């Protein structure tokens, strides 16, 4: 590149050199206009400086724009550095950005001067605006000046714990920059990566995985605990992050799971059994099967599948390769359709996708065979696309479709694109060897091509025919003779050499022609290409051995010519052949075997695909595309023979859970007399501590329950009371005093849960930590089951108690009782416990009596709540009849019917779960046994199953409770309801309002929270309400029937406020209803979960407009 050289000169040179260079540049540049531009630029370098030092922003900006133009052309503007760097603190955003561009480009060259700008960035890192912090970190980390490494390290560490996910994302990018600048920082950076990997924000996930791949791709152990989170977040991560995460997870999965490919057939069966609800025999087989896919393995496959629909081709390809490398063989084919779709995209995309399909189609013809038409070549395709399509068509060829393919090939051979035509001939050759039925047809076709006018076509045909004849040792004299005739007209060396070789090899079959060909060759020997000469020597030697009478002299002549050839290969070969075939005293023993050496039968060449060996590389990678190992390529490891311990991926450490169960028993007995205050302290302590504080929690919860008991002497509370809220503690302890200890253990688990929720909510800044905390609880199925089993084992009564608990009173009553307290809070917000009441609590003491009485009554009288106090009336009436949904009809369930409703109580099992009450009824005439929830797919929502119902008599019904973590989406939870004999697929779809839990707050708090959730977090609509709904009570009734929120008491008459949190992530949901004239109202919902907001808005609107 002459221009480059010139630029370099300029850079190095003095002023004069610049002058000279400038003129040359000008002449090089094409237009006259450019000339003006260039010359002014250079003359104005001084002017630029002046402009930059002026006071006018517009002048500075103009100067920077010109400088950027220089940079974009690859010219040197480094002499302006001091003038530019002064403007780094400019207030003008565009100017600042351009200065950043300049800084990043030249800081490396002007390190000392670059340091001047550092303090500006350090200051900006503390800016209250997250975008300014982020951009400061971006630029700071892009300045490749080794001296600031410690500053960068510090900034990265700080940014990694920034509140803004955007800043954390930037810090993930900065990690790689720092690593490339100073690899010694690796250990520290890994710490930061470890921390960021735990981040729950989708914004961060992609970037941190990039950093992980760059800095420490071998530290697979860092992934374990984040594996499930990454799988679950994947769909919501931005598209570029998805690609990186999928590739990383592919590598991860290959080290952690066992191969799903072994004994594939058996697995096939089990898969069917998995989905097929009524295949008993297959179930039997499943028990015997040797391979069970790790649920985490399944989770990955399931969560990546929707991404096949991505518009980003790289994402689709990434998923495709993941399935190729990880999925059981019979599942891989789901990617086919999407890959074929990519062929509609740009030429470059086609190229890469076709390469990958080519590799895949070698191993798995069946995958692409139905889409064969998509690989038909179009005359407008670029040559490399055409050849790749040809490759794939050849791979797909079999007895059934070969005639179609060959017909296509006939068209392609005539193509004006000769390179493509030649490739087609090779493809025909491959088809001919692979499919014996068509070998003769192909051979004849190729022979016809020998008379083609185009030389490359003929040459290619000859080469292919040579190979074919070799694989077909039958008589093909005619073809050889025909080729000998054509020999004079063929000039392509490779083709000539091939014919000569054929002559030599089969010289005994064409005894008359071969010597004549040799004679012709002797004449032209000197003017031939090397490869032809070598074959001539070969032919001569072979003829000498078979037909020495006719060819002896010719051979000697050729050997003499060869002896003095310019090429040493030919000289060597000649010398060797001479020694071998011409008997002399020196040649010795080898001479006798000359015939056997030269005329040995040779193994036929195997015509294989050029993509045969590409499967050593991971699909979709650069290495695969180039078929060379690129720098930084991470080998995909083989499946481990035995899977490493899968429990490493359990986010919850198992031991504490096991401890927790026995501690229940212990905690029960002491019934310490601690009072509220202690218990709060405990909880506060725990806010800081992570998992493993289960002992604490159980003791604290037990203390709270006991304290509840002591504060509230009445032991008459009903069970419904206990199951819902903080009040239950008192009632529970009351109950436990009356004999049934189990309920207290149950309440403890609730307590514990409650506490977790508390932990999650009180401090915004702790949000993420708390989230991950709750996630820990939510994400470990093993831990979960063990905990539940521990529960049942530690206290055998608990099951029965649970059952009987929910059995006797109608579940509707429960919910009624439970929702009551929320409304009460409105009137009684001054109660002391309010600090703790982030989760649906009710003030424990004051309204209790009324609650008790009402609930007791409800217990006795069913749903009638007639003689409750007025405060209660509002509440109880505020919640209409519980909506019960059908889960399984008794017709489809073979007698088993199931209904469910949302009791709106905090879930026992995990705080992030929504409690669901399921009523199982046996309407058949025989008893049903072992009703339980079957295996769930790992990718589905996290579900806490109910304990197996051992036996259900005809006509009897039982109510069981389960917990489902809907992750704040209305996605349906699918699972299998199994009896001893059958399995039924069922699904629970929650209304959006059920994904909330009430949150109590005072009006000022509400207002301040609402202010934080303005802008796009606010959704509002004006609604027209049915006239019946205009009263305040009715409104809250309607709202509460739709959504599980708490009422915020307000002095304003025309305003009604409700607050709640999403169950899973604890995001605030604030509902405001502003009454306007003529039964219209403005309904506003403030929450980060905008999607939920719009759905909730819709539901509320509907409810309020109905009478």
């Amino acid at each position, binding site marked *: *590149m002459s221009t*480059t050289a010139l630029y370099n000169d300029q850079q190095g040179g003095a002023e004069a050199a610049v002058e000279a260079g400038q003129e040359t540049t000008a002449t090089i540049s*094409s237009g006259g206009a450019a000339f003006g531009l260039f010359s002014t630029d250079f003359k104005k370098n001084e002017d630029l400086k002046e402009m930059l030092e002026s006071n006018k922003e517009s002048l500075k*900006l103009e100067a920077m724009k010109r400088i*950027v133009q220089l*940079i*974009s052309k690859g010219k040197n503007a480094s002499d302006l550095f001091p003038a530019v760097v002064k403007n780094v603190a400019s207030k*003008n*955003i*565009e100017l600042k*950005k*351009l200065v*950043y*561009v300049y800084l990043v*480009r030249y800081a490396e060259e002007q390190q000392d001067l670059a340091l001047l700008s550092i303090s500006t960035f350090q200051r900006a890192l503390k800016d209250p*605006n997250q975008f300014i912090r982020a951009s400061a970190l971006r630029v700071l*980390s892009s300045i*490749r000046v080794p001296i600031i490494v410690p500053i960068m390290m510090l900034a990265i560490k700080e940014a990694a714990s920034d509140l803004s996910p955007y800043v954390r994302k930037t810090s993930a*990018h*900065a990690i790689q920059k720092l690593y490339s600048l100073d690899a010694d920082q690796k250990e520290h950076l890994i710490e930061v990566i470890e921390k960021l990997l735990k981040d729950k924000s989708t*914004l961060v996930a992609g970037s941190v995985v990039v950093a992980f791949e760059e800095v420490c791709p071998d530290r697979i152990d860092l992934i374990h605990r984040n594996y499930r989170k990454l799988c679950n977040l994947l769909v919501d991560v931005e*598209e*570029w992050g998805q*690609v990186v995460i999928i*590739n990383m997870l592919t590598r991860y999965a290959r080290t952690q799971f066992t191969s799903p490919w072994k004994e594939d057939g058996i697995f096939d069966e089990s898969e069917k059994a998995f989905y097929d609800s009524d295949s008993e025999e297959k179930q039997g087989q499943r028990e015997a099967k040797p391979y069970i896919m790790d649920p985490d393995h399944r989770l990955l496959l399931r969560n990546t599948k929707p991404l096949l*629909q991505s*518009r980003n*081709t*790289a994402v689709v*390809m990434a998923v495709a390769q993941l399935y190729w490398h990880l999925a059981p063989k019979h599942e891989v084919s789901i990617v086919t359709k*999407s890959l*074929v*779709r990519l062929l*509609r995209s740009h*030429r*470059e*995309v086609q190229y890469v996708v076709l390469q990958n399909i080519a590799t895949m189609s070698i191993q798995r013809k069946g995958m692409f065979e139905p*889409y064969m*038409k*998509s690989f038909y070549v*179009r*005359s*407008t395709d*670029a*040559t*490399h696309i055409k050849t790749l399509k040809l490759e794939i068509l050849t791979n797909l060829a079999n007895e059934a479709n070969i005639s179609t393919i060959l017909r296509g090939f006939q*068209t392609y051979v005539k193509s004006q694109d000769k390179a493509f035509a030649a490739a087609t001939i090779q493809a025909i050759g491959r088809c001919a060897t692979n499919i014996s039925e068509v070998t003769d047809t192909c051979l004849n076709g190729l022979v016809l091509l020998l008379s083609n006018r185009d030389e490359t076509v003929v040459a290619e045909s000859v080469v292919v025919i040579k190979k074919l004849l070799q694989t077909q040792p039958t008589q093909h004299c005619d073809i050889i003779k025909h080729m000998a005739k054509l020999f004079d007209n063929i000039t392509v060396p490779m083709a000539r050499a091939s014919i000569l070789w054929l002559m030599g090899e089969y010289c005994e079959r064409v005894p008359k022609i071969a010597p004549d060909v040799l004679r012709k060759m002797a004449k032209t020997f000197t003017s031939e290409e090397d490869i032809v000469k070598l074959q001539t020597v070969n032919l001569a030697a072979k003829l000498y051995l078979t037909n020495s009478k006719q060819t002896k002299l010719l051979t000697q002549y050729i050997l003499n010519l060869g002896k003095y050839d310019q090429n040493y290969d030919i000289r060597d070969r000649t010398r060797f052949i001479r020694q071998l075939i011409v008997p002399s005293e020196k040649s010795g023993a080898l001479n006798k075997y000359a015939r056997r050496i030269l005329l040995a039968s040779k193994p036929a060449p195997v015509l294989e695909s050029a993509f045969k060996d590409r499967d050593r590389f991971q699909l*979709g*990678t650069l290495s695969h*595309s180039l078929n*060379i190992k*690129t720098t*930084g*390529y991470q080998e995909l490891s083989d499946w481990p023979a035995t899977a490493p311990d899968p429990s490493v991926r359990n986010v919850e450490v198992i031991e504490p859970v096991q401890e927790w169960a026995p501690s229940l028993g212990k905690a029960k007995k002491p019934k310490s007399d601690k009072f509220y205050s202690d218990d709060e302290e405990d909880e506060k302590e725990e806010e800081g501590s992570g998992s493993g504080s289960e002992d604490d929690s159980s003791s604290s919860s037990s203390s709270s329950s006991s304290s509840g008991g002591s504060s509230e002497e009445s032991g008459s509370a009903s069970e419904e009371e206990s199951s819902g809220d903080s009040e239950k503690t008192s009632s529970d302890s009351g109950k436990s005093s009356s004999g049934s200890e189990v309920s207290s253990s149950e309440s403890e688990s609730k307590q514990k849960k409650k506490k977790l929720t508390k932990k999650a909510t009180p401090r915004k800044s702790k949000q993420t930590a708390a989230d991950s905390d709750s996630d820990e609880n939510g994400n470990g199925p093993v831990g979960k089951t063990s905990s539940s089993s521990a529960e049942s084992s530690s206290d055998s009564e608990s099951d029965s108690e649970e059952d009987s608990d929910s059995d006797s009173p109608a579940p509707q009553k429960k919910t009624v009782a439970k929702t009551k307290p929320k409304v009460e809070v409105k009137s009684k917000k001054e109660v002391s416990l309010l600090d703790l009441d982030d989760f649906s609590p009710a003030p424990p003491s004051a309204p209790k009596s009324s609650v008790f009485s009402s609930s007791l009554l409800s217990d006795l009288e069913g749903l009638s709540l007639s003689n409750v106090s007025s405060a209660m009336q509002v509440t109880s009436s505020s919640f209409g009849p519980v909506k019960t949904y059908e889960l399984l009809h008794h017709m489809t369930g073979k007698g088993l019917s199931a209904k469910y409703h949302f009791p709106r109580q905090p879930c026992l099992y995990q705080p992030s779960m929504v409690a669901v009450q399921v009523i199982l009824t046996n309407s058949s005439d025989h008893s049903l046994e072992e009703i339980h929830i079957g295996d769930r797919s790992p990718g589905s929502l996290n579900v806490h199953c109910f304990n197996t119902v051992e036996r259900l008599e005809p006509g009897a019904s039982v109510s069981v409770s389960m917990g489902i973590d809907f992750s704040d*989406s209305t996605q349906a939870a699918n699972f299998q309801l199994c009896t001893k004999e059958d399995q039924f697929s069922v699904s629970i779809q929650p209304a959006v309002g059920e994904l909330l839990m009430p949150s109590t707050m005072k009006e000022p708090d509400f207002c301040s929270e609402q202010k934080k959730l303005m802008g*796009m977090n606010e*959704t509002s609509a004006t609604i027209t309400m049915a006239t019946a709904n205009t009263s305040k009570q009715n409104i809250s009734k309607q709202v509460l029937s739709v959504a599980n929120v708490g009422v915020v008491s307000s002095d304003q008459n025309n305003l009604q406020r409700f607050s709640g949190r999403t169950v899973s992530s604890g995001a605030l949901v604030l509902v405001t209803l502003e009454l306007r004239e003529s039964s219209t109202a403005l309904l506003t919902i403030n929450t980060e*979960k905008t*999607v939920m907001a*719009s759905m909730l808005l819709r539901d509320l609107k509907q409810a309020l407009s109905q009478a």
Partner: protein
Amino acid sequence: MIHSLFLINASGDIFLEKHWKSVVSRSVCDYFFEAQERATEPENVPPVIPTPHHYLISVLRHRIYFVAVIQSEVPPLFVIEFLHRVVDTFQDYFGVCTEAAIKDNVVVVYELLEEMLDNGFPLATESNILKELIKPPTILRTMVNTITGSTNVGEQLPTGQLSVVPWRRTGVKYTNNEAYFDVVEEIDAIIDKSGSTITAEIQGVIDACVKLTGMPDLTLSFMNPRLLDDVSFHPCVRFKRWEAERILSFIPPDGNFRLLSYHVSSQNLVAIPVYVKHNITFREGSSQGRFDLTLGPKQTMGKAVESVLVSSQLPRGVLNANLNPSQGTYTFDPVTKLLTWDVGKINPQKLPSLKGTMNLQAGASKPDENPTINIQFKIQQMAISGLKVNRLDMYGEKYKPFKGIKYMTKAGKFQVRT
């Protein structure tokens, strides 16, 4: 990831370079030029080229090569997809993506590239976010800027990136709220000599232009969603809803975007809307060839076939052609041997035809192959697959938007072998 980007024009000049990590010398492009020389056609340059220390991944759009330099393993599609996204963004910003447009707006280009990648990893590629960061240049704004000295860079920092709907900018306001959807289907087909269809498939897209205030939540349902065999969505579409109900539910980005692209399976019978009668012959020994082409509509459900354009790459031996079109105009480029015939609208009563003779090089032998005929056409108000939008509803906002839907069928890669 992506180290540097070079933009190279048709004549082989590097007219823009941008580095995201340390500077890579321009000389790395020499390897690209080598590959370019080896390739006979511009399209034949391999998209991935290895060099001793770097790898070059390039895309060719609008006669400009976008060459990305990378240093270590990265999925090639990742880079290719990104480069195409860059081109799309330029096109979105400047209307056209030409060397002149890029040179004129080099500062905006630089600002865009700076925002799109951080350390070689894509940062913001959503056009909605970028437009918040950097306002697209318009004539008016350029004038105002030069007078007042104000800038193209958005004063406000983007909020969209942080929200749950990163593709939509906040605070959108329109006086006329409107949402238009274009269902555009393309037929890819290969028709053989005898007129029978070798392969035909339909690829469709739904392009949307949504100008709605606030945060509208739209649902779009089809009369016959089963037709769609394979779909890919804009990230805004809720996949779960589609899986369950076959309804497109989404909070749209602001402005123009591609909502959906789909494929109607090749298993279905595809109605081919035009037929071609052709008679192209070269006689051995004579230096003349006959050319006879007639077009006619079929299976168009009464809709007119418009903007018909026939092109054909004639064999190299053809010197010139004396043809007589019954309608429209034709051109023959004696250098590239490309024959194009701009037919216009097909009148079913009077079928358009192109007849005449071709002159071959004296002494040249008869070409092996008859030329392939490529046809382009448009049919308005019809989606050839029969796909129909049922209804469009909006939630989350109070106003009544103006809704519109348009159907169109086009020829994609429509080839007739002769």
